[in-house]
């Protein structure tokens, strides 16, 4: 079949096609639709991170979990808690201080547990009431456990007392400890975990407050002969708000302590477990700490 170059239908079709191409070039390239009323869900990934940071910082101030949740929904994340946790871990990996990461971790934790937890405070709470009574053995124990931790936040505020009129002895500062958000944690459980589905040498750490609620954002320090590792509870909220873990290597002795004080757990190492067939494998440990 031969096309007739003088066919008027062909002329029209070619003109239509040319017009269509011109129209598309103009509408897609020369003058595309301009967004002036964008919503946060189409923000670039790094701006979304900044947006989440602002939401978390605002949440720390207002403690309004419903508003924070509604704001996170604007970002269109399939799983806002997982996104917050992932962002917290990205920030830590990038060398951000935990002070900057903390609001994100806190918001993730609170969304996971569904209620507003105790706010973090950068200054020690009033954990101690100064009263004119003699030191008790309990106090001495508290001070003794604090001694090894030179970096820990001071829990006690000492104020010299005025001498009572009838006393001639030199007045001494006295302390009465009241457990608060920063009360030291005690080791309440050290269990060997023989579960072949877990990674070899997995050290799991669980922190709970006095009411057995898991506590997020607590710095844990693991040391061994040639190194030291710092990490925090609550960065894997899917495993628990007070959960943290660390991979131990076989044949190395580790020590575990919490930055804010409490039990010091020296000389822990990977245990050896036996599976159903009698074969040996490297097990893990679960350390459980609790506030009084």
């Amino acid at each position, binding site marked *: 079949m031969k096309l007739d170059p003088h066919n008027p239908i062909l002329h*029209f079709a070619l003109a*239509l096609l040319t017009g269509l191409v011109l*129209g598309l070039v*103009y509408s897609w390239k020369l003058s595309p*639709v301009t967004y002036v009323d964008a919503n946060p869900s189409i923000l670039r*990934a790094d701006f979304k991170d900044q947006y989440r940071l602002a939401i978390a*910082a605002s949440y720390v101030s207002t403690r309004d979990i419903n508003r924070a949740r509604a704001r996170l929904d604007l970002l269109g994340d399939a799983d806002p808690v997982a996104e917050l946790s992932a962002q917290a871990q990205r920030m830590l990996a990038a060398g951000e201080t935990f002070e900057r990461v903390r609001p994100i971790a806190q918001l993730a934790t609170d969304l996971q547990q569904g209620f507003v937890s105790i706010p973090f405070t950068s200054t020690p709470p009033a954990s101690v009431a100064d009263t004119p009574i003699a030191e008790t053995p309990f106090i001495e124990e508290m001070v003794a456990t604090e001694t090894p931790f030179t970096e820990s936040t001071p829990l006690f505020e000492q104020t010299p007392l005025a001498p009572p009129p009838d006393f001639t002895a030199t007045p001494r500062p006295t302390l009465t400890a009241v457990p608060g958000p920063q009360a030291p944690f005690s080791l309440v459980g050290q269990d060997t975990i023989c579960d072949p589905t877990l990674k070899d040498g997995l050290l799991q750490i669980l922190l709970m407050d006095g009411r057995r609620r898991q506590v997020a954002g607590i710095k844990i320090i693991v040391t061994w002969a040639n190194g030291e590792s710092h990490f925090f509870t609550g960065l894997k909220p899917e495993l628990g708000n007070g959960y943290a873990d660390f991979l131990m290597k076989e044949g190395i002795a580790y020590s575990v302590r919490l930055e804010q004080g409490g039990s010091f757990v020296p000389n822990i190492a990977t245990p050896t477990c036996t599976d159903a067939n009698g074969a040996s494998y490297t097990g893990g440990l679960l350390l459980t700490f609790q506030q009084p």
Partner: protein
Amino acid sequence: MQSTWIRILIGIVIGAALGLVYGWVIDPIEYTDVTPGILREDYRADYVLMVAEAFHSEYDSDAAARRLALLGSESPAMIVSATLDYGRINGFTPQETALLQELLSVMQTYSPAAGDTP
């Protein structure tokens, strides 16, 4: 001959019209990686309110200015002032207004430290 040119012209016009409708309405370019500068006004206002709420507890004017700078090249004070106007028209609570006013008063006197580019 003249009618041929008229047909071609009509074809081009109709084709261009179809192309424009397709490119602008039916299948416009989708933006996925936009900057906060083109957020809709209510989202901008809420973002500024978040900055004000965070500032109320952090009291860190550098951090607040950095966060506001995401919204564009206007000065932080102008951004907060525009949000205050928006809030007055759109029924922000007195508490929210007070937070914005607190941020505005700080941003009006804010000058970035050397090396900072908020």
